[in-house]
């Protein structure tokens, strides 16, 4: 029992923080927002120079052989800069294949995913029909869906990979509130799906990775809103005083820190629990997703409020955090749904 980062984990954290702070600048992110929400140069450096696209994938297939804790470190650092990166679909499909793919499927897909060659998206709980391995259905709210090569879909205990550039697929891009992760709707009309060998394992792996990714992004984002607001509060003078000297302002920042510290426990508890195969893993995942998303939203809202007028301008970055926070709240199940899962675990299923 040692609930602190190892030296290696601390080093990864430092590296990725530095990488995103240097590269995922507001200017570059805004450029990506005006296009398809992906900073391709960032994605390329991320995958190729740092080898981070394979962080949670097995070494024999080109990955780094690390676990959810390390993946969370990466997502936390990406979230802290609201980086325009197709990370969510990437980690979901990667874990789906790593945990539920056949050896052949792993050998086919994982090296390409680890190399960042493919952009992926995932649909959760869709309605679909399947006939002879051909899939039909409409899949809305696909993160980075208009830019994705691959789609992970699942239904019941079955999971498939679909080539979004293939036949029978049409994709419509949407203007999305969070422009760093725009949604698209894919319509499949008898598109060829490649079924993963162990659907249950694939789905469990994908969801765990997705929830941890979102929770960790939220943690990083929330901490960034706190750090930036603290810095602003020491610069900005009103009524002849640093605004950070006003007790009400201080207490609001303290409230942010109180929630963030719990969010930090939540993310790494969930990541550890998954890595260690703990009985608590499901409760940890639902707790982390629900709690971190709410924390981020609260903090990002406070960031706007505590910056005053400048905070709700387009020019200031506060709205990037705020919109990302809102988007994380609803992605892969909203807070009420996740809390209901926790309630079911302690109270039994709902009536």
């Amino acid at each position, binding site marked *: 029992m040692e609930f602190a980062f190892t030296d290696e984990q601390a080093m990864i954290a430092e590296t990725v923080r530095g990488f995103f702070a240097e590269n995922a600048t507001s200017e570059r992110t805004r450029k990506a927002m005006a296009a398809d929400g992906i900073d391709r140069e960032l994605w390329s450096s991320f995958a190729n120079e740092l080898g981070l696209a394979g962080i949670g994938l097995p070494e024999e297939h080109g990955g780094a052989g690390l676990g959810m804790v390390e993946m969370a470190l990466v997502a936390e650092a990406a979230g802290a800069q609201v980086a325009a990166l197709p990370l969510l679909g990437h980690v979901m499909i990667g874990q789906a294949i790593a945990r539920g793919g056949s050896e052949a499927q792993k050998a086919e897909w994982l090296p390409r995913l680890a190399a960042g060659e493919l952009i992926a998206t995932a649909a959760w709980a869709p309605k679909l029909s399947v006939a002879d391995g051909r899939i039909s259905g409409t899949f809305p709210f696909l993160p980075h869906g208009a830019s994705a090569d691959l789609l992970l879909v699942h239904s019941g205990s079955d999971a498939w990979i679909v080539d979004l550039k293939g036949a029978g697929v049409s994709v419509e891009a949407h203007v999305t509130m969070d422009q760093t992760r725009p949604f698209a709707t894919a319509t499949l009309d008898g598109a060829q799906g490649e079924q993963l060998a162990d659907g249950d394992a694939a789905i469990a792996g994908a969801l765990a990775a997705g929830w941890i990714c979102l929770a960790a992004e939220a943690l990083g984002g929330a901490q960034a809103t706190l750090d930036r607001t603290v810095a602003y509060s020491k610069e900005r003078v009103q009524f002849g005083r640093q605004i950070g000297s006003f007790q009400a302002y201080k207490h609001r920042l303290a409230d942010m820190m109180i929630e963030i510290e719990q969010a930090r426990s939540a993310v790494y508890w969930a990541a550890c629990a998954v890595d260690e195969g703990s009985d608590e893993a499901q409760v940890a995942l639902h707790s982390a997703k629900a709690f971190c998303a709410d924390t981020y939203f609260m903090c990002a809202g406070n960031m706007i409020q505590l910056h005053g007028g400048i905070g709700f*301008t387009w020019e200031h970055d506060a709205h990037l955090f705020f919109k990302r926070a809102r988007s994380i709240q609803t992605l892969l199940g909203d807070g009420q749904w996740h809390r209901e899962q926790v309630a079911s675990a302690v109270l039994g299923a709902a009536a």
Partner: protein
Amino acid sequence: MKLGFSPADEAFRAECAAWLQAEMTGDFADIRGIPNLCDAIPRRKEWEQRLGQAGWSCIGWPREWGGRDATIAQQVIFAEEYARAGAPNRINHIGVELAGPTILAFGSEEQKARYLPEIAAGRQIWCQGYSEPNAGSDLANVKTKARLEDGQWVVNGQKVWTSLAHYSDMIFVVARSEEGSAGPKGLSFLLMDMDQPGIEVRPIRQINGEAEFNETFLTDARCAADAMLGAAGEGWKVAMALLAFERGVSTLGQQMQFRNELDAVIDAAKANGKAADPVVRQKIARAEIGLRLMRYGALRMLSGTDLAAIDGAALTYKIQWATWRRNLGELGMEVLGQAAEVAPGDHYSWPTLPNLFLFSRSDTIYGGTNQIQRNLIAERGLGLPREPRGQA
């Protein structure tokens, strides 16, 4: 204590409702229910001039300046019927609800005659020059300077959050007219023409992608020596009185807009099935109760006779509605779910509820942040010690 309206009031209601509905289904049907403050400006100017012609523009003002000497009950009724008819938000609400009443209170007869009939006729649109980049919530820290030169005030400085400045005819500017003065002393309240080379307006894009607010730059901007309310150096007093007018009858009209927004949430919940969710039902009930209590708070506030007096309902009203509306924005998103995060068209522009969610973040900031509101409530309402100023 009585909530119901008298038969005479109900007759008045019938009269104004009939007129408003005729207009909104007739000549002005094209701008009925238009939601924001930025669209269809020329048509809305025509509409406000129609209001003026028919004597419905500023009904609470004295008849001699274009009003009807309407009672508070009549003003309440008109505000309600105005919103009920789907008449658009007044683009000149600053002229009608802030500048006008302040001129009525502080202006000379000559000033009243110069400005009030023009406002009432819908021919003169106003904006406000209060906030500055370093004096957001701290009006006493105003840096804009005014000096008297050749019988004119010459003004230099920068104002911010001047909503609607880009189509306004007039601006009132709080400026420091005594060199070396500090804090609330030495300020003057100037009434300036917008149409002059010394005034430049630049839009500020907000988080919803629109630009309702502006920065206004004053560079040797000028007005006549007598284009000032109150005496030189007494601008603080005038400015504070003006803020009190924000709690006037217009709140009832604003509430009808809130009603429409809450109804949009209710309709969305019914349409997508969330109306059956007990957790959502509790939240909608809270919003409904909050809106009703705002209405009765406003009626309590208006039923007092001295609008400038400190009373609890008035003092707490701003933070109440701003917080209520921000919460409603969040509730709307919760009810709509992910669908609310996708814009209907191909540019960054949002329907009512997502736009409410984004724009309402400013409600708790402009016109005194929620933090400033709580200071005011604690200090003026409860007599607690004032926050100390630091060394500027």
